[in-house]
């Protein structure tokens, strides 16, 4: 019994220290972000508004309605949830890829933190969670913009938060995988053009995936943003296979985050 209690207290102590360490790393990034909060918030807030207004005025007269799950939906209501998905995808991926790479290769923040009483897991988790946090901030701001335009309700946004969190974590991990694979900052453009841009265009964001030619459809359906956009559109209805999409995101999240940790480890611990 004593041994069990000792093991539990040891585990709790390790957990407490790990939570503190992870928070400490995350906090460092949050403080940097906080220093230029307005500057950081304005572009992601205005970007979806620009898109929504541009598409609203530009495309709505041409498209008006989109057929989605057998219902006709105004085009702006169709793309608004996708804007949330795209916003969090870009922010979490970019922070995970560019941010982590710069802190790893140039500023040496990772290495410096490892001279303090922090371990690799804490530094990795802090970096990863921060990249996901940036995705959440932008996703939420985009959601607020959609609410302001009457395209989403506050309750819709609140219920979408868990899926936004999963998505941000997934794309942040994908960013960290990229950071661990590239040798120069310019090389980050490669996954952006090979994965991120196709994902934002083919995954049912600006038009339903049913419009795609049959050979592209399976690829588009497999990319994680497809399931994420489907789930974020829940107020418009959910496809019958939504739970497979959710499961797919969770499986990918586990795989990609483990891969990120595994790949970046030898870059900081030699």
């Amino acid at each position: 019994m004593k041994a069990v209690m000792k093991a539990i207290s040891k585990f709790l102590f390790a957990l407490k220290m790990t939570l503190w360490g992870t928070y400490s790393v995350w906090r460092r990034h949050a403080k940097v972000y906080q220093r230029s909060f307005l500057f950081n918030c304005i572009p992601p807030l205005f970007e979806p508004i620009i898109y929504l207004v541009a598409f609203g005025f530009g495309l709505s007269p041409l498209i008006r309605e989109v057929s989605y799950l057998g219902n006709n939906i105004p085009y702006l209501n169709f793309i608004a949830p996708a804007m949330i998905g795209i916003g969090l995808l870009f922010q979490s991926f970019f922070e995970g890829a560019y941010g982590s790479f710069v802190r790893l290769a140039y500023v040496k923040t990772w290495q410096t933190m490892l001279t303090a009483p922090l371990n690799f897991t804490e530094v990795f988790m802090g970096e990863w969670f921060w990249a996901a946090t940036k995705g959440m901030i932008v996703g939420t701001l985009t959601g607020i913009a959609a609410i302001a335009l009457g395209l989403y309700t506050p309750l819709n946004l609140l219920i979408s938060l868990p899926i936004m969190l999963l998505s941000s974590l997934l794309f942040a991990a994908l960013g960290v995988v990229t950071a661990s694979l590239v040798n120069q900052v310019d090389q980050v453009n490669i996954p952006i053009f090979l994965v991120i841009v196709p994902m934002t265009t083919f995954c049912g964001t600006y038009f339903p995936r049913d419009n795609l030619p049959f050979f592209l459809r399976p690829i588009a359906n497999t990319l994680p943003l497809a399931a994420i956009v489907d789930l974020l559109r829940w107020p418009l209805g959910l496809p019958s296979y939504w739970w497979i999409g959710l499961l797919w995101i969770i499986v990918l999240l586990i795989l990609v985050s483990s891969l990120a940790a595994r790949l970046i480890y030898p870059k900081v611990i030699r």
Partner: protein
Amino acid sequence: MQTQNPSTPSMSVTTSALSVPVLAVHDLWKSYKTPVKGDRNHRTPVVQGVSFNLHRGEVLGLLGPNGAGKTTTVGMLYGAVLPDRGTVQLSGLPVQNRNRMARMHLGVVTQDDNLDPDFNVFDNLIHFAHHYGITGKAARKRAGEILAQVNLENVAKYRIDRLSGGMRRRLALGRALINHPKVIFLDEPTTGLDPDARQDFWKLITELKREGCGILLTTHYMDEAQRLCDRLLLLQQGQVIDEGTPNELILRIVGHEVVELEDVAPDTLEELTRNANTWYRPFGTGYIIALPNPHPETLWHILTDLKSSRIARRRANLEDVFIRLTGSLLS
């Protein structure tokens, strides 16, 4: 050239060596995979069997040329490099297994300039203190103390890019002191600094030593090693080739005095040094010859009679130790 072996390292026992070491390093080994044609698993050894102890209030120097394994050794001491073999204990705590606890008592100044450019001088300390669980008023108080200690109070609000090289290194040292470490690792801390900045840094190291910190210093500056270090480990190709106090090493390996001279045939030097039971090595564009002790004057007079374009007699130093042991200059 004469191939007389330098004397083997003495097992010098100092007063501090009798006390319990604050850092005990035993048989560290590290190699990296470097695939070559025909052998994809080929490994290049970087550190080979390095062992030493460091005591409170002692400055131990790791001296060696670039690529000797100094930085890798330091990396293994705080967990940034995983050793293939060997152990590191800090106040009895195994660094590999109790890394967090060990690092609570460690201060590390790495070779890289890794201050946080996103924060000013004061905030660099505040945010680093947070990793140790030092927050709020306590962090601000400690940051203030450190800025006073490293003489950076007047630039507390400066951005990092406004600091001179010397200030940056002092801030890096200050950051390493945030949790009152028992041991500090300084990895080539004064590389690239001007003489004044180096002097300022040396003062800080001397103060820390006086306060009882154990300091491990890697450097390839001989004057720095000679001035600051109580004991030196000479590293070459990942191995400790000799160790001792600076004066002991100089006396044992080189002697009291050396002569630098140019434009003399090596055959002549070979014969002269063999007869005088001493040695010579190529040095820059000429040669360096150790004068025998006792009776250095005999050889000196013979050398002055040679038709050398330049001849100079001087006290032996650590640079000569390295030339003797490795056949090359340290830097």
